[in-house]
């Protein structure tokens, strides 16, 4: 499967999904996220992560760096825990260990997975606002190329895909998609299991 071939197919579904859903996941205290971000926010970055996925865990330092670098540029960052069975208590503990300053949310009905088409953890989705409180996915894919496949990782990444996309976003340049297939743990959303 080659990401480049996928993209033209995906854009169709992305635009379909740009209609504003009733909510965008849920905070750990159970409050629905009715707005992804304040109206003037330039973009929202969703990091799809999991409490027990070692590949997702390994990406946290880079995700934290991106959050710290780009938050001041009017970009909101949310860590999305999309998997069924992950409890708020486990997620709080996990988030406190890996990026205590980050905001964690649940995706109990898979709205964010459907909106972005994320399918593994870790993955990054960059969304920009569109009219009527909608959001458009302008990037979905790998954080970097540290992992070549499960069982093979580079000593350090050679390409920082998410960093490049955010840099381009801030510079109002066209966003370059990542290359290769996202490597990680398949997302098992609650709605899929049901």
């Amino acid at each position, binding site marked *: *499967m080659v990401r480049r071939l*996928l993209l033209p*197919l*995906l854009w169709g*579904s992305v635009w379909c999904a740009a209609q504003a859903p009733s909510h965008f996941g849920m905070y750990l205290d159970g409050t629905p996220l009715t707005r992804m971000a304040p109206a003037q926010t330039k973009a929202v970055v969703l990091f799809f992560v999991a409490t*027990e*996925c*070692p590949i*997702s*865990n*390994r*990406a*946290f*330092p*880079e995700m934290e760096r991106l959050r710290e670098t780009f938050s001041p540029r009017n970009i909101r960052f949310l860590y999305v825990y999309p*998997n069924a*069975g992950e409890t708020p208590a486990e997620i709080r503990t996990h988030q406190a*260990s*890996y990026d205590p300053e980050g905001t964690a949310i649940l995706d109990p009905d898979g709205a964010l*997975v459907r909106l972005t*088409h994320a*399918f593994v953890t870790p993955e990054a989705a960059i969304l920009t606002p569109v009219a009527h409180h909608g959001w458009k996915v302008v990037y979905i894919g790998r954080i970097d190329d540290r992992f*070549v*496949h*499960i*069982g*093979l*990782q*580079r*000593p*350090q990444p*050679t390409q920082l895909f998410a960093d490049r996309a955010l840099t381009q976003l801030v510079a109002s340049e066209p966003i370059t998609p990542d290359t290769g297939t996202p490597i990680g*743990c*398949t*997302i*098992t*959303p609650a*709605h*899929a*299991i*049901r």
Partner: protein
Amino acid sequence: MNRLLLIFGLGCAVTVAHAQQGPTYRRQIAPIFYRSCTSCHHAGGSGPFSLTTYAEVKRFLSVIDNATSTRYMPPWLPVPGHGSFADSRRLPDDDLSLLHEWIRAGAPEGAGPVPAPPVYNATWQLGKPDLVLQMDKSISIAADGTDLFTNVILPNPLRGTHWVRAMEIHPGTPRVVHHANVLIDRTASLRRTHPDWRRGIPGMDINVDSGDAFDPDSHFLFWKPDSTALVEPAGMPWRLDEGNDLVLNLHLKPTGKPETTRAQIALYFTDKPATQHPMLLQLESDAALDIPAGDASFPVEDSLTLPVAVDVLGVYPHAHYLGKRMEAWAALPDGSRKDLILIEDWDIDRQSVYRLAHPLPLPAGSVLHMRYVYDNSAANARNPHSPPIRVRAGNRSEDEMAHFWLQVLPQSVPGQTELQARQALQRAWMENRLTKSPNDTLALYNLASLDLTTNQPTRAIELFRQLLLLTPRDARALTALGSALNATGQTSEAEAQFRAALGADPSYTDAAFDLASLDLQNGVLPEAETLLKTTLAAHPDDAEAHRLLAMVYAGQNQLVQTLAELQSWQALVSNDPDPHRALAQTYAQMGRLPEALREQRAAVALAPKSASDFNDLGVMEAEAGNAAEARKAFTRALALDPALEAADANLKKLKP
């Protein structure tokens, strides 16, 4: 398949999961996980997630599918059919087929009872250890960055010699410790060369100084996450001497969050000393490692002809991140070939010691071969350099290595002692190194030491001189040359070398000791006294230095000081009759007969078959007026050695 199909496909698979035609988790699949996965993948284990229940397995199904298809998991590098290994972790083909059939069928849980998973606990597997060594403090591992390689010294706090029949490592935080090697530093050399050793000594590989004594007793002490307690074969416990350090060579991996770990080593002793002494042999080709940037297929080779027959017990192939294909085999004198191992996709993260399922006998004259191929191209994802650069051998992770270790049990032939067989292997190994690298200082030193040990001091002198051309201010080599010269009677030349060694390194106490011995021999007692006091200030537990200093004081008729040194000597070697003999003689000389008798009695208690000790005891008893005891002692001496004329004469002198 695109993303949408994958996500919704999973949902569909779940809904049809009740078809019971094929394998189910409860019937066939759970036992596979229990056999092959859960030893690491359990709560608190080294695996990143637990796989002990259906829900846990289901959660990671795609990862499991991928990791087993590529044979990334369970971790096992050797290609089947090339060497036969104990404790193989390779998932049997039938299990793999069944697992994939089950996944393709939607991973049904099935009906019926769930087989009980194995129970794992955090305590020591073999019960309460005899000794637990723990790191002084935790090591911190940053959330990000490259792997960390460090070496931690754990000094042995025990007196005397112990024999270790089993060892277990608790790595502290299992998920960060990728593997660990334990080295025995018999000379505390790392502590000496790294005064700040408590902070940890960096390095993927490390050399320890085995000292001057040829020590062929060698074991693989290797730990990886799925390792259980390391139990040595019967008759092969390893020796742990007083003053030895255990060096824990750790490979630690960042996990994405700051971590700490504090390892423990548990040791289990036996009171039965080793009856068989395996040794380690090494094939290596480090000198040939000069890998051009971009070269995707750089081969190196080595071979070693066995001068004696051996049984191969285990192998340990080792390279760093550029290693790709590793192959080792033995060519037997009859022309046949025995494969030792083949690894087609080397991964240092999954390296291991491989113990053979059964000892592999190789006759004398067999030739051991290794052939490794390295990939220094950008296509090698593990390449630590981006873009690639020229890489040579070294201990750092970004350097390379070409090592193939074997643990062998030498088989002596009639007329040859076991030690001689081992020495022959050691000689062949070192000569092989010198053939590849004539300036190999380690090989020159070891070979020269071997010559000195085997009473070939003239050859040793030649080799030490050759070594000193390369390392002219090496205090140890200068001292060793002095010893070799002394062994050939060239005492003045020997003295010059000892003085040169002290000039190069005034703290090198071996040179001070050897020069003091020579001084004692030559009657230069004041200098000997000064040198030995210096030695003892640095090494207060050096029994030989106490003995020598006692002799120096005795030579100057300073009997009180003599007594003090003899007592220190005796305290350090409690089972040795020699210091008791010397104390008895000194007390007798001082006219302190009761103490002399006490010491001589201690001597005969430790050496009950020594006729001369009983004769000396008889003399002291007679002098103390204990005629009956004296008679008994002389009679005992004569019973042990009827030809002992002194005892016979003494017995006759006693009045009936």
